[in-house]
């Protein structure tokens, strides 16, 4: 997308007023960018500090030394801290399959609900969508009961299942809206050619689906990676915990060594940040292609 813009840059030769407003635009944008980066700056400088330097009154002071000790402790553990190394793998083992399954399920649902409408399918869609709004804090007990009953409590598959299920509404919404933009004539043409349900999906819709998959994958990846409550409730063994829970566990029951905690926070944020930095433009392209335009 960045390819579109830099070429056209008609600043030279414009009247002063326009150049001023241009300067103002940049000033505002830069100020906003700084504001957006502020909390992260705070995390960074705190992570480099020694615990004795961490306090509200000295929060803006730069660290007196540049040490990676907090990061080392957050990652490898030590001095009573349990490192996040193991949890990182757990999160990957949850996020990857959950995201893949969410994408496939959402895509299939979207396909059916947009191209194979039947009586009541709109009502069904509305009912599925409503699932998005259920307050998770209220359903933890029945969730544990159901997962125990099917033997998935306290396991990563249980956590994956939960994320997939509560991801159904949003993934279905995105794919349905996305497929709604694919002309129905294409599908009809396929039917006339004798293509069945699956071959229409595979040969007509799937090849067009990449932007939709990107949006859903990014969305699910970040929300599952960042999710805390399910990870907390469903896993009981520290060896199975996802990173967000491991991060929370770095705060003691009494006081928290914020330098270590914030180093951990930065580590936790790395994968999702990378996703946004490198795939952000595809996310935008996916949105552009209609996945969330309603």
């Amino acid at each position, binding site marked *: 997308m960045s390819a579109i813009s830099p070429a056209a840059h008609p600043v030279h030769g414009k009247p002063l007023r326009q150049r001023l407003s241009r300067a103002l635009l940049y000033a505002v944008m830069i100020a906003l960018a700084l504001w957006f980066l502020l909390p992260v700056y705070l995390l960074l400088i705190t992570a480099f500090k020694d615990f004795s330097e961490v306090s509200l009154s000295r929060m803006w002071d730069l660290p007196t030394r540049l040490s990676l000790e907090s990061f080392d402790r957050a990652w490898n553990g030590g001095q009573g*801290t349990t490192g996040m190394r193991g949890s990182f793998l757990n999160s990957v083992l949850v996020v990857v399959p959950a995201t893949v399954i969410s994408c496939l399920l959402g895509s299939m649902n979207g396909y059916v609900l947009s191209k194979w409408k039947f009586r009541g399918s709109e009502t069904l869609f509305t009912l599925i969508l409503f699932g998005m709004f259920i307050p998770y804090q209220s359903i933890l007990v029945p969730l544990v009961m159901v997962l125990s009953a099917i033997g998935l409590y306290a396991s990563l598959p249980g956590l994956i299942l939960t994320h997939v299920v509560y991801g159904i509404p949003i993934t279905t919404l995105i794919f349905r809206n996305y497929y709604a933009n694919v002309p129905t004539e294409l599908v009809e043409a396929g039917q006339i050619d004798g293509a069945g349900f699956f071959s229409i999906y595979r040969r007509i819709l799937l090849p067009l689906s990449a932007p939709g998959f990107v949006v859903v994958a990014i969305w699910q990846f970040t929300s599952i990676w960042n999710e805390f409550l399910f990870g907390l409730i469903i896993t009981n063994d520290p060896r199975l915990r996802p990173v967000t829970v491991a991060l929370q566990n770095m705060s*003691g029951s009494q006081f928290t060594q914020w330098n270590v905690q914030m180093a951990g926070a930065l580590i936790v944020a790395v994968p999702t940040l990378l996703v946004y930095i490198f795939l952000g433009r595809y996310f935008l392209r996916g949105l552009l292609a209609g996945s969330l335009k309603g």
Partner: protein
Amino acid sequence: MKSERKLTRRQALKLFGAGAASAALAACAAPAAQPGGQPAQQPQQPEQPAQQPKRRLEIFSWWTNGGEADGLNAMYEVFLQKNPGVEIINATVAGGAGTNAKAVLQTRLAGGQPPDSWQVHAGRETLSYVNAGQVEPLTEFFTEKGFDKVMPQFLLDQLKINGEIWTVPVNIHRSNVLWYNPKVLEEAGIEPKFPTLDSLFAALEKLKAQGKVIPIAVGGKDKFEASHTFESILLAVFGVEDYIKLWDGTDTMWNDPRAAEALGQLKRLFSYANSDRAAQGWADAMTMVLEGKAAMTIMGDWAHGLGISKGAKVNQDYGWMPAPGSDAFMWLSDSFCLAKGAPNPNEARAWLEVCGSREGQDAFNPKKGSIPARTDPDLSKYDDYLKAAIADFASKPLVPSAAHGASTTNAYQAKFHNTLEVFSSDLDEKSALESLKEAVADNNR
């Protein structure tokens, strides 16, 4: 729609099979990160013969980090020396000011998945588990192991619910401590000696008039700071005997005019406190004292642990005294219970034996920064502050903390905290007293 009936039964079955298969796919397509649905079986000691049934023990606590985690691990080591080959599942949960741990525990209990033993504040906080039939009585266990002979009788009495003991206390913390910055007080010309509330207020007034530091730092973000400060004031105003009666589950003492007086004193104390206390945790408040931005704060003796990890020295960089108005020892205690229907009851009992033992307590407490619940500790392992606390615990009258569950149920504590947190911001004595009276029934459930 009519022609749909043309579908043969075989076709329909086949289709249903496909649907069911994909349903199953959704449920199990997850790669076998963890074979089966069993909790955590990654064998830690591969030398263990595979056919021998694994002995396990799951301990639930909120000691996830720092000295508390070190202490817990030290206790595990003691356990493993005595019970080699047992695999310990250290189910710890922190964060959310303790509510996360309770959330996990509650969902597990309600979902029929109890850990073998879990951490609970000794005393009335255990009541709800007792009433719900979720824990086993341990009175006989206490006699059997001789714990009843090595813990203060007064503590044992305060542990009893329905005539039975339900948990094994591993440590004691003191709640009513005033921490101060000696340098700040010296510069202000104040002698650090506040035996009464009036002497405290005189000092605070002086500090406020000088206007160089916050006279008394108070937190609020962790929800319990206001109620924590309040319980020390209640003790000062009511005295030992009547203070204990406050928590008997009736509103008798709350109708006493001294209840309103105590709230008035707290309000007065807040007028010398930092105005941004709603955003500060107790640790921020203590940090202000350590940095000399505030003169003092009232907090439990875990603040001493914070001081140490900030590189400060007790009696030098910071001093302490009992919170003004009473020199009684207001205790709270972390303890472990035995789950009813514990998956591994024998291991759980072996664990509780370690919890109550001298060896276990002396392994745990020096690291955690608390004192043993037993009267026979190995003093050489404890630092100066803890030695003093051990001496006070043995000699002063003991009163239970309300803000930390020794004399309050979970339900009551939550309301107590919230009422005082609201009071800290709106300073409305009348509505605070009303809520406190309304809540008393919760101290029975």
